[in-house]
């Protein structure tokens, strides 16, 4: 791992003209080669932070370095290293995907012929080549999002920043985008993504920062974050329906999400086989079991709620 972080943000502040204080002294570091998640509720300051890093928003104070380059004093050198996939569509819908990607490479100084070769490569990688010469306004939502990823990658960035890249796309496309992002991260590109899908962060990212109310309230590894969960929820599929949740140990919280699906909150210290033994003793047969997928969501809500209470 390189000693110079891909991104270092120190005491970043932003107060908009209307008085809204979007960032209240944010500091974080993203190691080179990392897959980093920036999580936070709407209005937490995620997009403002990304906007300042990518020169779209003027900072009110603080510092940003991209691979050791001062993003404010050496703006052009820093921007040359970044690929941005914004949340909102921001390409000319009258142009074709090929024109959009090729021109974008040109804005970064890639010569025309090389830009065309790269545009072809990335549009093929993102499965858009068949639509390459049609007006981009005719693309589906998922295709438009992939087009913005192809556009960001055509400049061969060392740091790829994606703002909600899978918002509004179907599950199949989301999974294929995850695979794609894993692959390009494996090729050495540092990836930062903001997402509302906490499962996405858990599946893809190694490090995470949670931002709320313009402040970083957590900055750690996904593993350590999940380790903070002192309770884990399991979903049990039952052989026969139940009228009411059974009563087991006092430490366990049980609820029926439907007559044949039982959710059990198990403290980390508790043994899971005791749960099964107790259920068997009451004649309840379990067919299958899985972790509840949104365990990170539980923690996230707890952290954000805690932050809100602290702020109050």
């Amino acid at each position, binding site marked *: 791992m390189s000693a110079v972080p891909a991104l270092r943000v120190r005491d970043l502040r932003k107060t908009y003209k209307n008085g809204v204080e979007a960032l209240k002294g944010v500091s974080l570091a993203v190691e080179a080669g990392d897959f980093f998640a920036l999580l936070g509720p709407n209005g937490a300051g995620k997009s403002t932070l990304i906007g300042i890093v990518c020169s779209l928003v003027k900072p009110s104070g603080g510092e940003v370095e991209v691979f050791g380059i001062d993003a404010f004093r050496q703006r052009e050198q820093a*921007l040359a290293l970044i690929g941005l996939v*914004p949340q909102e569509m921001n*390409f000319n819908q009258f142009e074709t995907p090929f*024109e959009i990607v090729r021109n974008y490479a040109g804005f970064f*100084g890639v010569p025309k012929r090389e*830009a065309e070769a790269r545009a072809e490569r990335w549009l093929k990688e993102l499965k858009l080549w068949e639509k390459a010469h049609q007006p981009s306004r005719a693309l589906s939502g998922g295709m438009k999002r992939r087009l913005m990823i192809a556009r960001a990658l055509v400049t061969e960035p060392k740091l790829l920043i994606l703002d909600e890249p899978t918002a509004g796309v179907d599950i199949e496309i989301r999974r294929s985008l995850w695979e794609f992002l894993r692959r390009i991260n494996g090729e050495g590109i540092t990836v930062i993504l903001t997402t509302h899908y906490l499962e996405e962060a858990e599946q893809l990212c190694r490090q995470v920062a949670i931002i709320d109310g313009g402040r970083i309230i957590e900055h750690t590894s996904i593993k350590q974050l999940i380790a903070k969960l002192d309770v884990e929820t399991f979903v049990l599929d039952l052989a026969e329906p139940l009228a009411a949740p059974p009563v087991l140990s006092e430490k366990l919280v049980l609820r029926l999400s439907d007559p044949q699906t039982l959710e059990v909150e198990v403290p980390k210290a508790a043994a899971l086989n005791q749960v099964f033994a107790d259920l068997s003793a009451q004649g309840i047969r379990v067919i299958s079991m899985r972790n509840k997928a949104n365990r990170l969501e539980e923690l996230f809500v707890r952290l954000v709620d805690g932050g809100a209470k602290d702020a109050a």
Partner: protein
Amino acid sequence: MRLELIAFLTIARRELRRIVRIWGQTLVPPAITMALYFIIFGKLIGERLGPVGGHSYIDFIVPGLVMMSVITNAYGNVSSSFFGAKFGRYVEEFMVAPLSPLTLLLGYLAGALLRGVLVGGLVLIVALFFTRLSIADLGVTLLALIAAALIFGLAGFINAIYAKKFDDISIIPTFVLTPLTYLGGVFYSVEMLPSPWRELSLVNPILYLVNAFRYGMLGTSDVSLGMAFLVMILGTLALGAMALALLHRGVGLRH
């Protein structure tokens, strides 16, 4: 330096492609409008008028009408294209790219120049159907045409920077540009005006552009050529400095 050149050429090519793609909005209307001017003012009315500045009326108005087309179209090209980029948010493609504000500005000015030259050339071709054209000084003609496209391309760019809605890019052309053009000696010689209108006309910068271009084509002008070029140089420098300062400060672009 190489990066800036490639970025400049990319923007200029994109602007040219836009002009050609929407040719029905960019190239045809000025040709039709000017053909009507030539028919009505040049032929139907002009043939009943005596010579102006030593030339037949239609010969006198050709340079002015060419310049009027160049001014209007250079302004409109940059204001609509750059504001369209802001409105559609694809101006962000430039803002996150490592190109300098000067390169961005020059790219859009190249678009203004291309549209100005294309429209100016078309209007001259249309004029050939009504009169014989002459060029007294090719260098002055070209310089005046380039200066007009650059000055009004810069003005259109500044308008687009401040604009928040499409109405904002039509106010200046309607209430400032059109009156100044009509009062800038396109259809008459300022020598024909009584005082104080004659003196007042001298503060209109378009008068100098029209007359420099008319000098290039016909060899006659209401103002001195030196003064005309001074106005063009000062206009380009002042508006260029203003546009660059606005871009550096991120006015209308970065919050």
